[in-house]
């Protein structure tokens, strides 16, 4: 998304990962933020509180807690706003119920979770990557969800824009996972010219209000979504509903509804699954990493290449739906695949799931609130 050619309106700033998220959100058209500040995501709320009131329609609300925060975001989104919230581990746990509600009511929203060491209050100022599977399966019931991650400050901006685009395009909550290191690293970034940026907004109905069916199936599986209060009246409920939005428990209607929820994500895997391949073409050993660990891995690849080892790096930017095709390709190509992460193995279990004995999968797991260093990764690669 970063502009590659010379543009007039792009500016360089020295910003925190959290501040880059705000830049990205505003570029994507976000005009509503509600939440409850929590370390290490506080700067997102602070910066939003500074910036949003200056927008014509901008609204910032500090709610009484995280549950209400996400509740307000869902309401704003149903009323036509591009809305987001940000939190960290403890707040993310509180938000789980509303993620399910957003999922079943197909409400577009972006939730940034800056991961810190847990469980519970844990270590508020230490990094970890322990919420990966919670982001996927945290809310109850079988549901599809999009989970993205970012590893450096420029990526924070880009992935926030992508998160809004996916949310609007597929009418789904999108979770952006950052970690304390990424969120609290300052770097020089380029804020692109808004005119060069691809920004997607939800489809509005083209039929008159009396013909409108809020949850009708179509080719994409995503129905148009009018803002509440614009004359289109429909019923929003957390109960399983039919095409009109009214509760139903007829097996046929339930089956087609839930399978549509999955299909609208599944059939666009190719669009959603974003990865960075670094020196993968001739790699015999592959590192699969995401977030801040991806940057340590990048340096490890550089160090290993200097020693003549053919090492590549697959940086995952989309965590769920799991980018299976590309991971499978690397598993076929390489004799050893290493998954370093700052938890007890939440993405490595996905890699092992798709491995089917094609390659040897190794892990580095660090849970002491310290980052995985390039040296650690290099050592593990050389030992094989």
């Amino acid at each position, binding site marked *: 998304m970063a502009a590659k050619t010379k543009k007039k309106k792009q500016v360089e700033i020295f910003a925190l990962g959290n501040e880059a998220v705000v830049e990205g959100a505003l570029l994507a058209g976000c005009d509503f933020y509600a939440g409850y500040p929590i*370390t290490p995501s506080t700067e997102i709320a602070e910066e939003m509180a500074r910036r949003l009131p200056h927008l014509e329609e901008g609204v910032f609300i500090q709610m009484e807690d995280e549950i209400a925060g996400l509740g307000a975001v869902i309401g704003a989104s149903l009323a036509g706003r591009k809305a987001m919230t940000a939190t960290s581990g403890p707040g993310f746990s509180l938000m789980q119920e509303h993620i399910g509600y957003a999922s079943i009511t197909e409400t577009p929203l972006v939730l940034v979770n800056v991961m810190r060491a847990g469980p519970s209050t844990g270590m508020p100022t230490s990094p970890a990557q322990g919420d990966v599977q919670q982001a996927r399966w945290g809310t109850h019931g079988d549901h599809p969800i999009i989970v993205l991650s970012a590893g450096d400050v420029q990526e924070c901006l880009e992935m926030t824009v992508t998160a809004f685009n996916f949310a609007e395009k597929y009418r789904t909550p999108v979770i952006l996972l950052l970690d304390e290191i990424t969120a609290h690293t300052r770097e*020089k970034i380029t804020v692109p010219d808004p005119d060069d940026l691809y920004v997607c907004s939800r489809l509005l109905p083209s039929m008159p209000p009396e013909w409108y069916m809020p949850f009708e199936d179509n080719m994409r599986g995503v129905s148009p979504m009018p803002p509440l209060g614009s004359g289109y009246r429909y019923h929003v409920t957390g109960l399983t509903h039919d095409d009109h939005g009214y509760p139903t428990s007829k097996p046929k209607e339930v089956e087609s509804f839930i399978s549509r929820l999955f299909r609208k994500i599944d059939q666009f895997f190719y669009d959603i699954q974003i990865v960075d391949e670094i020196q993968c073409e001739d790699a015999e050993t592959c590192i699969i990493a995401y977030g801040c660990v991806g*940057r340590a891995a990048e340096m490890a690849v*550089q160090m290993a290449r200097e020693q003549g080892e053919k090492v590549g790096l697959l940086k995952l930017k989309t965590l769920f739906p799991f980018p299976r095709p590309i991971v499978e390709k690397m598993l076929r190509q390489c004799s050893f695949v290493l998954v370093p992460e700052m938890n007890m193995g939440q993405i490595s279990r996905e890699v092992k799931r798709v491995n089917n004995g094609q390659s040897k999968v190794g892990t580095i797991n660090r849970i002491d609130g310290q980052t995985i260093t390039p040296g650690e990764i290099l050592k593990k690669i050389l030992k094989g």
Partner: protein
Amino acid sequence: MSKDMRLNRFEIRLSGLGGQGILTLGKIMGQALALDHGYFVTQTQSYGPEARGGASRSDLVISSSTISYPKTVSLDLLVALSQEACNKFFTNLKSGGALVVDTSMVAQTPTNIFLGLPFTEMARKVGLVQTTNIVTLGALTHFLPYMRAASVRKSLKSILPSKIIDINIKAFNAGFSAAKKEYPDAPEKWTFS
């Protein structure tokens, strides 16, 4: 003091106590180096849950090429504004690296080769003890041959609120001239990798 000096991962750790302004110091330095000098800079931070008094540190990696790993590996420069920080991080300093200490806070240094100035005392003399970090910044601007005073002042003005800018510029100048007087040849002693 060439303005386009090539750097390959020059690593700095600014360390001390919460409340001393370590993170602000890192932000101002980083912004000056990234936006004005055009280096690639990553500034990371680590601090305790306390508002004041806990350990606080800010790490900078400065390079002429893109930086993959944002944290420090082995330090070229350690700035210690507390005894605890000095003891804790001295071992991370690589051989030939420089140690800068606040002699009003650090009574015992682990080596006799260091650059020391009483930053906290100097800030008090300037009139506001909270400017300790900016006094330190002034001294560092002298010690680091690739950092220009003009761009640091510019960065200072853009980050700090306007009502406290005058006293901070004063603090910056105090640190800069004291370092120049005390260690006139410090900028030439670096061995860059």
